[in-house]
């Protein structure tokens, strides 16, 4: 019962954010009314006109590895930039906290 209530709160939070986003996009008039539509089942190209997605079933063997490695690389850089200085600072704090004999 407790978990159900919590799930409900999370779903309500999802719904609120989705509702605000939907309302904002529609109110800005840049959604279905003023921009070109596309047929159902077709993925829209980006505004620049380039199709960024890859049709299903046509992905290359090396593509999966490249995409994953790129994403892991970005996350690894962010983690290194933050976690490494943080651990250095924590170590320094610990060493200064211990009184020297």
């Amino acid at each position, binding site marked *: 019962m407790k*978990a159900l209530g*919590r*799930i409900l709160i*999370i*779903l309500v*939070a*999802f719904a609120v*954010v*989705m509702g605000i*986003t*939907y309302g904002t*996009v529609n109110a*800005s008039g*840049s*959604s*279905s009314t*003023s*921009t*070109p*539509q*596309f047929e*159902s*089942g*077709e*993925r*829209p*190209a*980006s*505004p620049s006109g380039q199709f*960024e*997605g*890859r*049709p*299903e*079933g046509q*992905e290359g063997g090396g*593509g*999966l*590895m*490249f*995409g*994953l490695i*790129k*994403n*892991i690389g*970005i*996350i690894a*850089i*962010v*983690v290194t*930039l*933050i*976690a490494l200085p*943080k*651990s250095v600072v924590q170590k320094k704090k610990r060493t200064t906290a211990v009184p020297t004999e």
Partner: protein
Amino acid sequence: MTEIQTKTKNQTKVKLVIDVIIFIAFLVALDPRSSGIAVHEWLATATLAALVVHLLLSWDWIVQITRRFTGRVNSQSRINYILNWLLFIDGTVLMLSGFMISETVMPFLGISLPRGFAWRSLHDLTANLFLLLLGLHTALHWSWIADTFKRYVFQPVAQIFSSNKRKDMTA
């Protein structure tokens, strides 16, 4: 070991497994060009359920920080809290924009939505932001990740190997 300690230990293990699953799922889902649109959409939709479980497992922390946010909370928890909200909002917008331009999930469910290029742009923008926020989220929890992996993955594996080695020595 007390009942509370056992419960906490089990909860940490469950959390670790779910977090690893979510992380891998997001990494695959964030690259639709390589995974294919169908995998991208279904995986992202399934991750939504895993995300709810992730939030439920962190519920106590969320409630605690929400109550004390304006009061006495250390700066790291405050940054973490703000970042988690940004991640939640960005993830939700990413999910909604994904549903709006869906080619597989929504047609499968028989739902047709008004679609436009704005949703596509929003989806690309939030996806890029999500990757960055996911990196920040991982970075801020890095000590927990490293400690938990060490305690529940590396140490048990090392123990298995060392016990096997001892058996070989005695044989």
